[in-house]
């Protein structure tokens, strides 16, 4: 499928701005990453980090009249950003698909789920209605809907939340897309259902050799399914690398802060957690230098207040692990060792 050199999906310098009454909102700022088939990239960030807008820009879901998207998103050599709306629409649903947190954002409340699944087939494939229905039935079976022959004639409201999520996944995957973007697909679900859904996505990914971009705020999900991770903050990727890089060798103070903020199921942390102080920045008024500087405990270690005035670049520190931070390598390592030791110590 893909040539040996070019990655399957390669996003380069993607930026999204929205003009608003309060000024220009820079939602996504120079985001670059790539994903191969069969692999999972997790995009982690808090609200306002730009992780969802990045996904919508790749999928061509942003209204071009209300937003300006620059940069490239090469899907097997074709730039999704440069395509016109019709071209992107043809790609969407066939070669790429997206699932959301709220299944009702994808399901029409007035139509039976069988009709909606068949329609997804009929739009992108030249098959008979009967064949499309057969495909819908098979897909419902595969996503684990019990008694699909009855369920196919149900309306969405007749299904539970977990089942609707499965139907949405069935609809997204019915044309076996090569790229699946999942935007917080399990946030609204209970943990036991979440485990089922993540397993389902993993199984279908293996079967179809799908490239998955998982957008989430849950570090547990990242640890569970990701191969690579991009940590976003204030519209920028602040650290990226393999899942082991991010969890065991993190270097950016924000990533460290996130790891220290999470309560753990498998250990009792110190009585008090060690959260990042303050609030995430508003995308309307981002700090001029490092976006994390106002909340960073270490920016005073950098000479000349560089963190406040100079925008740091995302620098590869080896093996595909990249960090956006003015601190030098030795300083970052010392800080990371301190934080991780404290975490390991409190868990003992």
């Amino acid at each position, binding site marked *: 499928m893909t040539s040996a050199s070019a990655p399957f999906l390669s996003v380069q310098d993607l930026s999204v701005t929205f003009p608003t009454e309060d000024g220009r909102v820079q939602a996504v700022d120079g985001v670059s990453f790539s994903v191969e088939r069969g692999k999972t990239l997790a995009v982690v960030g*808090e*609200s306002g980090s730009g992780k969802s807008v990045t996904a919508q820009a790749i999928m061509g879901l942003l209204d071009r009249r209300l937003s300006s998207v620059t940069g490239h998103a090469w899907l097997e050599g074709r730039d999704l950003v440069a395509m016109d709306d019709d071209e992107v629409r043809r790609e969407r649903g066939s070669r790429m698909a997206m699932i959301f947190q709220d299944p009702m954002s994808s399901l029409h409340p007035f139509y039976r789920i069988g009709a909606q699944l068949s329609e997804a087939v009929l739009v992108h494939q030249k098959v008979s209605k009967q064949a499309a229905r057969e495909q819908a039935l098979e897909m419902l079976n595969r996503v684990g809907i*019990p008694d699909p022959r009855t369920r196919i004639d149900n309306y969405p409201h007749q299904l*539970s*939340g*977990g*089942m609707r999520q499965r139907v949405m996944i069935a609809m997204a995957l019915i044309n076996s897309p090569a790229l699946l973007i999942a935007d917080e697909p399990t946030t609204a679900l*209970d*943990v*036991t*259902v*979440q*485990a*089922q859904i*993540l*397993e389902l996505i993993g199984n279908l990914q293996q079967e179809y050799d799908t490239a998955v971009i998982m957008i989430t*705020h*849950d*570090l*547990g*999900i*990242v*640890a*569970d399914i*990701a191969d690579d991770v991009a940590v976003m903050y204030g519209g920028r990727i602040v650290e990226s690398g393999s*899942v*082991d890089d991010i*969890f*065991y*060798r993190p270097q950016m103070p924000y990533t460290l*802060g*996130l*790891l*220290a*903020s*999470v*309560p*753990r*199921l*498998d*250990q*009792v*942390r110190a*009585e*008090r*957690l*060690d*959260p*990042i*102080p303050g*609030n*995430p920045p508003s995308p309307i008024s981002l700090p001029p230098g490092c976006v994390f500087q106002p909340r960073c405990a270490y920016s005073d270690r950098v000479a000349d207040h560089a963190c406040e005035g100079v925008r740091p670049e995302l620098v590869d520190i080896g093996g595909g692990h990249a960090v956006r931070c003015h601190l030098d390598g030795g300083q970052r390592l010392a800080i*990371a*060792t301190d934080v*991780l*030791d404290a*975490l*390991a110590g409190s*868990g003992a």
Partner: protein
Amino acid sequence: MTDIPATDDAVLRVTDLRTHFPVRSRGVFPKTIGQVKAVDGVSLSVAPGETLGLVGESGCGKSTTGRTVLRLIAPTSGTIELDGTDITRMSAKQLVPLRRKAQMIFQDPYNALNPRHTVGTIIGAPFEVQSVSPPGGVRAAVQDLMARVGLNPEHYNRYPSEFSGGQRQRIGIARAVALRPKIIVCDEPVSALDVSIQAQIMNLLKDLQDDFGVAYLFVAHDLSVVRQISHRVAVMYLGHIVELAPRDSLYSKPLHPYTHALLSAVPLPDPRAQANREQIRLSGDLPSPINPPSGCVFHTRCFRAEDRCKAEVPELRELLPGHTVACHFPMFDLEVGTVIRGPQGEVSELDAPEVRPPSEVIADVVESGGLARATGVDYVTGPDATPPD
């Protein structure tokens, strides 16, 4: 239901609480055709200064329990004692003075605050409603509270819309602690917040508990959050408490199959530990609380269910110190290689948990630069598998 081990000075004691909602037929003369048994025989107690976590999945009745104990929802039967006073059948008027003792913090910091009131009015409302005049005046007291919860007291005249989600939750907390209540019911107080803000709010709740000795009934679905903040934890399923135990006992030796499944379903933020974990997948959805299953309500999804579970309701029994569980076949005896049957007959086997000597674990930690952790599954394979009757 069995007696819950409780100190006599419990600030909240709930005995055999039931909250049923009638299901009515449609039409001009609606008839009651069923009951949603949202809470069905819950007993618990909260000691002064203690945090009792109440966890479960959506629809398990944890929020209804939280609201019923404050009499925001009328109980169907059972008793609720607040600080020694039976409030189960009190009128709204009689309840007013008792509201000083019990307060609530809500999940959604956007809907819990009146958008047309200033922060000062919102936080000062409890003083006004209860006709309390704090020394130094209401304004000073409110500004004290604002400073205490981490808000800028100068923002006294601002409106909720001018604050972020985390700050709004702080406003709600300031309002709840204004009259120094003995207990606060926290209904998912951090689940709508970002990770870094979540940790801030949990620390704040802990600090207030240390300062004022307030007790919390902490209702949440996030098991990691509950572990961080609770002293004891109750697990609910379909209107019943299936397990109630001191925190560490519950998380290290869960005895109920449902607790096991719940804990194993939460992904750990640690890729290596996560890859080595034993996971139990529950199949199916929560049964309807209108027609709950016979016997043990969990038997339809339980991988250990036998005929007895369909027929007999299991009582809560204390099997470890302070650790009670409602199960005919508690997971004392789960040994390596145990065959687990799914409800549809699927068979899976428990693999040997990796148990490594501490020296090896430490070496691994040093080598990987810090965060590798031991991943042994802590199953009890104790000899005493026969529970006391």
